[in-house]
């Protein structure tokens, strides 16, 4: 029997997802990660649930938005945990799913291993898992 599932629709965050960083424009990928994706994933991780991220219904995405959001998730929790728990649903543009799984996650996993921290353009504190699997906080700015 599979794990319980939690649903996260980006449409609930914004109908018009914006650029990569918060400093570049409204509803950025960075802000989406900090405000919604990180807490949702952390909750699912603690409660042993799967997270379904729904990309459908918005006006469209810039690749940088998704790269930043799912990239930071990979940086904070590791590719294996993300692949294990997150499933991306995109009926409108299934190409995004392949991009995130095949390119974004491997690239940011490399950054995680190289300790190349993500650029921050807003004040935030997120929780991430260190190499030993222990929860730690990471702050932006």
């Amino acid at each position, binding site marked *: 029997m599979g794990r319980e599932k939690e649903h996260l629709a980006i449409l609930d965050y914004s109908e*018009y997802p*914006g*650029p*990569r*960083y918060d400093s*570049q*424009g409204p509803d950025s990928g960075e802000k989406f990660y900090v405000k919604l994706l990180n807490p949702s994933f952390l909750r699912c991780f603690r409660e042993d649930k799967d997270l379904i991220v729904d990309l459908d219904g918005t*006006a*469209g*995405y*810039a*690749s*940088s938005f998704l*790269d930043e959001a799912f990239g930071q998730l990979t940086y904070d929790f590791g590719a294996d945990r993300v692949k294990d728990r997150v499933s991306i649903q995109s009926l409108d*543009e299934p*190409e995004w799913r392949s*991009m995130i799984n095949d390119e974004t996650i491997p690239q940011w996993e490399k950054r995680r291993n190289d300790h190349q921290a993500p650029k921050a353009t807003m004040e935030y504190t997120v929780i991430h898992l260190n190499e030993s699997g222990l929860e730690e906080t990471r702050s932006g700015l």
Partner: protein
Amino acid sequence: MSFSDIIALLNIVVTVLIGFVITHMVSLRDSRMRAMKDYYIDELAKIRDEICEFYSSLYRGMCSSQDIIDWHKGFKNRVSGFDESVRNAFNLHLPSLSKQLFANYRQITYSEEFNFQFRDKFVHFSPRERSRMGREEKELYHLLDQFLYDINHSGGPDFLVNKWQELSHHFSYYCSEGKGLCSVICVIRDWLLSHITRILILVVSIFLVVSFLANAKRMLNTNEEKEAADVVIALDSIRADIRVIANSLSQDTTSLSIESMPVLSSDSSAINSELLPCEEVQIISATKKSQ
């Protein structure tokens, strides 16, 4: 009616049927295929124009970041619909047009210019970025040209494959209408109704050929019987004549012996030089009476 007449008539029937098949099926299929090709080529030209206009506005810095996202969202659906449809129609094996378009879009929205000028009314790309976009635009046009060539040279799906697709579409339609198992019956009914003229022509043709062949066989038998009777009458007449000759000879001869036997002889006057039954008469022995 002779056998050669039957062959000649059958020849006419077969010629008419072949003519019907060529004019009605082959020619009709070709004209339909041409119409389909023209439609897709026209659509391809429109897609090319739209891509050209989009890249032109990117180079001139005439659109905002949100305009680029909106354009891709709308245009991608149109291109992927075209991509799928044209592949089904002509059985093409080309790289996906929508995937190539998506790859280009990804690069554009990944760029620093796009993101840093997200709030601005217009995005201005650097010469380096414009050069990269130019190369990607060229690849798109190259792919569009390949589509154009392949569509124009495609023979379309085979007749049976085409029919199968048509029936599958009808079946899917009735299934979606909730007809369940009755979908098959509905598909057969539709097929019969849409081909009623052809079916009638086929049935009438088969009926005519079968009845014609049956009549021809009967007539052939009757002719043979009549010919045999004629031969018997002719032989009887010959034998009667022989008897008359023998009687007249018997007045002048003693111990007259005549032998009559049926033989086959060729008749040079007949067209086919057929072997005809004849009667050969031989006087075996005769002794003249002494005066």
